[in-house]
């Protein structure tokens, strides 16, 4: 309710986008209006930005800026942004902004904190950065670069042969790439492909977020519920990822379709990360559908007088609306579970098993009572897709939960102080604090070098992952003093005798704090709980025996405000794990280098799984 005539700041900003790729959208109207949190724009002809996202329409292939849209212009704002159109670059800018803002909002909501980039940097989006069949995240400039290209002349599907296709007009591609950027911010060591699940997880995670996010658009879901009569495993455009893209490059179908029949043996036979990732996407989708069905069982029973069999013909619009609303809610729950899982993942070398356990634990911590049995559905879905949790006794929820620490563990004062201070910072970030609002400082990272070859690009991404083994290096890579202070204290805590051993780390090696976050959640009893999640990494040096990969150890800790450790999720320097990495590198070499060449794996592994190479294969 307004308190004064001056009080006109809107909560949300409505913007039109294509919910499906324009090609699919042509078949029916899939333009939708979505809303994103309102924040004021700063505008220049060469770009516009809010406090976290910056859209710069620079075409690096043509050395040209396309004029930025003024979203705060009254005429544009009153029609929820400009009309969706393929030929209008300003609509493209509007769409990437809207989708990216929605992804960041989903992360904020799920994580219980505001996602912030290094030094409060903005995430930059270049909707027409280059001509090419790709879109990728460039950590060097904290940017997502979208390409555009002409459709295949021979086999363009429903596109016109030779027509321009814009990757930035695909909701999935935008959401996918922005998710890569955020995951990279949360876990930058996931760039290191120490096992096939790591790049697969990056891809699958980005796909899952893109897919579930679309399920939260009520207009879209209502339509699909009506078309599929509530059967979410039926083929529908919602399940197709990158539809126009797939058709435009001559694949003749959407890049991949989820919801296929599960094959539990696939995962053991597969090393190729995209295919592996698809297994994970399919498993999460299956879990989502199971939860949705459980959630709507009563609804269907009421609607059918208990028979469970829906009548022929169109469903009643009220039923469609209720199903859609349940679908959107379930999607939001699963999305939260999936995103929140990142807080419970080890900071290096994760596997699907780690992800499943992290998901179950994250959900358990958030919703103790699980009325729709989401956790059990998810575990069952993973099982039928052949993803087995490691080192657990059974498939019950209890045994899949990560092991909590002994509550009798003595609290640590230093740790308690860190959590306390972090709480304030987090609140300030969310503008929910009584602390004096501080001018937000922004930091410029050192100018990124030019890229002359793909090898340059790969090297740059890994240079910052590898640390010399000396204590002189800072504990944390963060320019903002307030954040850096807490990081330093955490570093001190990690150095105290016995801490590293307790975390499964090497007592003799230095530790890097690669991230720490405040987490707020409501406990079962209704009280607000504040915790801290921190990631500690002991980075190794590039190792020739491991194809140039660095063998690193790390631990994720969850600590309460009382200074007690609640969870420790660690990947220690173990012989077994090293042997696994080595086995994977050798298998990789065997696959592509069968002959009598001197083994020189070097950067080949990284090159094959770099963000750009992965997305390059992914989007074509």
């Amino acid at each position, binding site marked *: 309710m307004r308190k004064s005539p001056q009080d006109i700041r809107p909560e949300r900003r409505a913007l039109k986008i294509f919910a499906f790729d324009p090609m699919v959208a042509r078949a029916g109207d899939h333009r939708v209006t979505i809303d994103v949190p309102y924040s004021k724009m700063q505008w*220049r*002809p*060469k*770009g516009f930005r809010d406090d976290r996202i*910056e859209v*710069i*329409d*620079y*075409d*690096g*292939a*043509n*050395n*040209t*800026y*396309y*004029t*930025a849209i003024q979203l705060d212009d009254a005429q544009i704002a009153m029609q929820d942004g400009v009309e969706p159109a393929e*030929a209008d*670059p*300003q609509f493209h800018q509007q769409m990437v902004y809207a989708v990216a803002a929605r992804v960041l909002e989903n992360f904020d909501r799920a994580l219980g904190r505001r996602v912030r980039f290094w030094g409060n940097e903005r995430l*930059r989006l270049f909707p*027409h*950065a*280059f*001509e*090419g*069949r*790709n879109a990728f995240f*460039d950590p*060097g*400039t904290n*940017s997502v*670069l979208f390409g*555009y*290209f*002409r459709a295949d*002349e*021979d*086999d363009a599907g429903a596109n016109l042969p030779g027509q*321009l296709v*814009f990757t930035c007009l695909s909701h999935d591609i935008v959401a996918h790439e922005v998710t890569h950027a955020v995951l990279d911010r949360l876990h930058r060591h996931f760039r290191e492909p120490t096992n096939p699940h790591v790049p697969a997880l990056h891809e699958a995670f980005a796909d899952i977020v893109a897919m579930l996010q679309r399920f939260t658009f009520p207009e879209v879901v209502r339509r699909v519920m009506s078309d599929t009569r509530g059967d979410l495993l039926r083929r529908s455009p919602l399940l197709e990822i990158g539809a126009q893209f797939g058709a435009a490059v001559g694949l003749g179908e959407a890049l991949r379709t989820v919801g296929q029949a599960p094959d539990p043996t696939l995962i053991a036979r597969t090393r190729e990360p995209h295919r592996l990732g698809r297994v994970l996407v399919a498993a999460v989708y299956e879990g989502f559908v199971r939860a949705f069905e459980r959630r709507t069982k009563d609804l269907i029973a009421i609607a059918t007088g208990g028979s469970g069999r829906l009548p022929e013909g169109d469903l009643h619009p009220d039923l469609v609306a209720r199903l859609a609303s349940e679908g959107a809610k379930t999607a939001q729950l699963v999305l939260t579970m999936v995103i929140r899982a990142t807080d419970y993942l080890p900071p290096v070398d994760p596997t699907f098993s780690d992800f499943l356990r992290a998901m179950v634990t994250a959900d358990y911590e958030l919703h103790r009572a699980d009325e729709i049995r989401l956790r059990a559905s998810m575990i069952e879905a993973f099982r039928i897709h052949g993803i087995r949790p490691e080192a657990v006794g059974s498939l019950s929820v209890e045994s899949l939960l990560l092991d909590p620490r002994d509550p009798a563990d003595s609290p640590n004062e230093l740790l308690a102080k860190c959590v306390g201070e972090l709480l304030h910072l987090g609140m300030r970030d969310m503008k929910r604090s009584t602390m004096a609002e501080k001018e937000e400082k922004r930091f*410029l990272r050192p*100018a*990124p070098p*030019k*890229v*002359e*070859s*793909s090898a*340059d*690009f790969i090297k740059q991404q890994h240079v910052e992952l590898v640390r010399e083994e000396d204590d002189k290096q800072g504990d944390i890579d963060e320019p903002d003093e307030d954040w850096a202070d807490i990081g330093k204290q955490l570093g001190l805590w990690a150095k105290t005798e016995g801490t590293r051993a307790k975390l499964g780390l090497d007592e003799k090696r230095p530790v890097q704090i690669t991230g720490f976050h405040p987490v707020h959640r409501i406990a079962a009893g209704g009280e607000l709980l504040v915790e801290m999640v921190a990631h500690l990494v002991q980075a190794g040096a590039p190792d020739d025996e491991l194809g140039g990969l660095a063998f690193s150890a790390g631990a994720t800790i969850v600590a309460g405000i009382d200074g007690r450790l609640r969870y420790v999720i660690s990947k220690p320097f173990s012989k077994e794990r090293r042997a696994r990495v080595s086995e994977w590198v050798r298998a990789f070499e065997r696959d592509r*280098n*069968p*002959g*009598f*060449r001197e083994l020189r794996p070097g950067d080949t592994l990284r090159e094959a799984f770099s963000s750009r190479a992965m997305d*390059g*294969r992914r989007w*074509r």
Partner: protein
Amino acid sequence: MSELRIRMYNVGFGDCFLLTLPDDKTILVDCGFHNNAPGDYSAKELVAQVIADVVALTGKKWIDVVIATHRHRDHVFAFNDPQWDEVQFGEVWFPWVDNPKSAEATKLWRKHHAFTMHLAAAVPSLPIAPEKREEIEFLLWNAGIDERGAPALGFNAWSNEDALEKLRRRAKKRRYLPRTRKVPETFEPEALPGVTVHVLGPSRNPSEIVEEEPPDPQTFKRLALNAGGENAWLAEPPFPPVWRAPPDDERVITAADEARIESLARQADALFAAEFVDHMINSTSLLLVLDIGKARLLLPGDAEWGTWKRLVPGGAHADACKELLETASFFKVGHHGSHNATPEDLVKMLGKSVPAMISTKSGKGNFRKGIPLPKLLEALGARAVRSDKPPEKLPKGFKRGPGGHFIDLTMKC
């Protein structure tokens, strides 16, 4: 006792083999070499020599079967020579992708044609280190594109099509192999009574020939455009000028960031792209086993790992091909002794006692990639003879021709 003769001409970096069967039937496998690494012959001399050898043997200008394993210049280039106009061929065998009537093949080539043309157009204007440039030019020349000249734009002019077309016209019968997806596909050619042919490659499945997606053609198009000149037909910016922001307006990103975006937009690994084209063409290579009496000849052309991995242990057709490979009594070493044309498993299956021939030429230059690989030569053992540096004392069955311009292997069959 009937005998079979295999003659390896010392063509340098290339292949040209003449097989003579006991009933004086003749088989010519490839006829070409790379300009940058020739051996003892010019194209004209080579063709004259082959024709003279055939005439000396049979008294006729007739070759029963010609095999063009794949369309690289170092394998088919000399088929362009006018001297062939006087020679007739019984059958000519090509990989299925060289069937001009196959829609599938046309689709496959079209993509690579466009891509390679853009690459060739862009290369002259790219900042590339000299040794890399040499390597790229080597590969493009082999694919039939001389990037220093204007690339021919017509699809038909691409990749040594002229040489193949000559072959097609000279042949009484043409076979495009394999015809089916069966591996191995076996047939008995009428032109060679008593001979059984097993086709192990290339894959009949286009997606197995092009396993990895090619580098993006658009990038090269764009590069060529930026280089200016005659290539302005290539592309235009995606939006009309009315949408452009005034170039001198206030910066929103630093000059360094702008430069990085540009470098990311333009950076194109031309060498990687050229290698891709090269691998793709090698992947179309015929991989044949010829049963001639008791002899079993393994002729893999330049087949690379993509073709082999289906056949060696762990591959989809390993069981069906095991016996064929294990009992081979002669091996033409693939791709001039390169790293990925001869799997270690294959060498194990063949054993050290099988005679082998490597048509190659070592020397300086990145483009050779250390061909032939010392480790491979070592693994093949003393019965493997290379064309450029044969040992002083040849193993049993091998014989040097006059002036050392060719080497014969005679084997019982």
